């Protein structure tokens, strides 16, 4: 059978691979190459070695901390959102698996923001934040911390419902007789949570943590629409910082591309760690 299928590759594989080559392989390989070049379009490149990479941190002999600032701002943002989203989603999921009235309706409502795109829902919140802060003659971009917590609220509102759905499925997968057995042995609610529910939920917790981790790290739309990186460049997350470097001023495309390569390496590193962790968990079970 394999032989007869084999010769049909132009029908089965070619369309996807042609598009994949245009849409991913060539841009990716060429993107790495361009990070070592000075360029303004894809045809006028000139090899400059590591100059783009050094210019991320040092420009004309002066230290430029913009990228480092955005790196730790992103790291902090990611840590805060991962913690809030996962704790809240887990809490809601626990409550919504007790079989209370209206469970389905609540689930529907909590999940809704996730379907609305980042641009649209950021403007929903921008109106709310700014009309509230107007009372104190402030806006969401008054300081980088207003911007920070604004972004945190928007992202939590968007993602808690999504993670809740995953936690609900995880909790429902815990065998009821295990809970029952622990109860008969006299475990109280806290012991039940700590010794039975949480350990059995570890695979789900890993999935959700890494989903929120990469989402936080790669956040762009909400950042662009809600704060635009203001005030100054103080609320620029990494993705927006790269975008602004690339399209903000001509002559900086190479530096933008070099930042993108570093960004890719960071995201890839997170994915590799995630893969290691989830695979080792599977082996244990």
């Amino acid at each position: 059978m394999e032989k007869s299928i084999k010769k049909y590759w132009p029908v089965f594989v070619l369309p996807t691979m042609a598009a994949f080559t245009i849409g991913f392989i060539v841009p990716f390989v060429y993107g790495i190459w361009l990070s070592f070049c000075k360029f303004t379009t894809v045809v006028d490149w000139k090899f400059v070695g590591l100059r783009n990479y050094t210019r991320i941190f040092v420009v004309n002999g002066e230290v430029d901390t913009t990228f480092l600032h955005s790196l730790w701002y992103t790291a902090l943002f990611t840590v805060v959102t991962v913690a809030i989203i996962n704790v809240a989603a887990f809490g809601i999921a626990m409550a919504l698996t007790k079989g209370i009235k209206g469970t389905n309706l609540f689930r529907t409502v909590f999940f809704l923001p996730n379907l609305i795109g980042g641009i649209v829902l950021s403007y929903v919140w921008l109106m709310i934040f700014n009309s509230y802060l107007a009372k104190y003659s402030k806006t969401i971009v008054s300081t980088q911390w207003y911007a920070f917590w604004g972004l945190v609220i928007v992202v939590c509102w968007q993602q808690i419902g999504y993670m809740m759905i995953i936690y609900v499925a995880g909790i429902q997968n815990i065998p009821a007789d295990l809970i029952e057995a622990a109860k008969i042995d006299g475990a109280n609610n806290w012991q039940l949570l700590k010794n039975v529910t949480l350990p059995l939920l570890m695979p789900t917790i890993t999935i959700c943590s890494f989903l929120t981790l990469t989402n936080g790290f790669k956040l762009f739309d909400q950042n662009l629409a809600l704060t635009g990186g203001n005030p100054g460049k103080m609320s620029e997350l990494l993705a927006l910082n790269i975008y602004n470097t690339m399209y903000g001023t001509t002559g900086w495309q190479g530096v933008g591309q070099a930042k993108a390569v570093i960004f890719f390496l960071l995201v890839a590193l997170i994915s590799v760690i995630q893969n290691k962790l989830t695979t080792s968990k599977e082996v244990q079970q």
Partner: protein
Amino acid sequence: MAKTDMNVSTVRRAKHGWILTTIFAVISITWILPIAMVLLNSFKRKAYIFANPFGISNVKLSQGFARWQAGISKTFVGFMNYKTAVKQTKFFQSFGYSLFITVISVFLIILCCSMCAWYITRVHNAATKIIYLLCLFSMIVPFQMVMFTLSKFANILHLSNPLGITIVYLGFGAGLAVFMFTGFVKSVSVEIEEAAMIDGCTPIQTYFKIILPIMKPTIVTVAILESMWVWNDYLLPSLVLNINKYKTIPIAVQFLKQSHGQVDWGAMMAVLVLAIVPIVVFYIAAQKYIIEGVLAGAVKG
């Protein structure tokens, strides 16, 4: 003894249930309050949106009922904001572009990637292995890594239009789709396919008559995940498309904010409502599939 125990726990659960239901009812209302606020303000005169975002009248009720009532009619402007918004953003045109791009892209992704996934699972050689690994790899690459080169190449290849961008989406979305379809095909036994081919089906007939129908659950999952991505995507179309001509909904919303020095918040509220309504309608119609699809995607991705 056991029976009494059960009764006690049911009673206790019911008691807790009431409290929890009440708490969650309150949280749920708070949860959709932002959207309700946008809906309310979309009918207000723009000057009153920031002055009194949560109220419905510019006069306090304590100043007399008649004046309060007059205040309401002064605050609200009917569908005026909607008219401005639709005119300024050419909303229905954007809606058409968004719909066209999403439907064609998702159709292409499902058809091409499921075919590709079946082929690379059934044919074992170095090439199919490499294709699979490349698809896996593409899933961890953030868009910023390829945005510059991808948009320039799309320009050179004349893909900067609603039809061309669907090919870009097929290319950049292929990783996840091929991965998910491959996972499914691996779990299907080859015997049915073999029987069909012994009976004289060509691989193409076998694929469309046998494989495609059994893939239905995975097709729904991939369709949901890719639609959510393409419909809401902002950065890729804003870089690839010729945005003077073609604006998808997210681009139109962002354009309304950037292009007119002073933002018309009345029009903004209206366009946000117009952008959210189709999503809510779709969500209510296909809720079961959406939640299942998202769940399957999260666990596998």
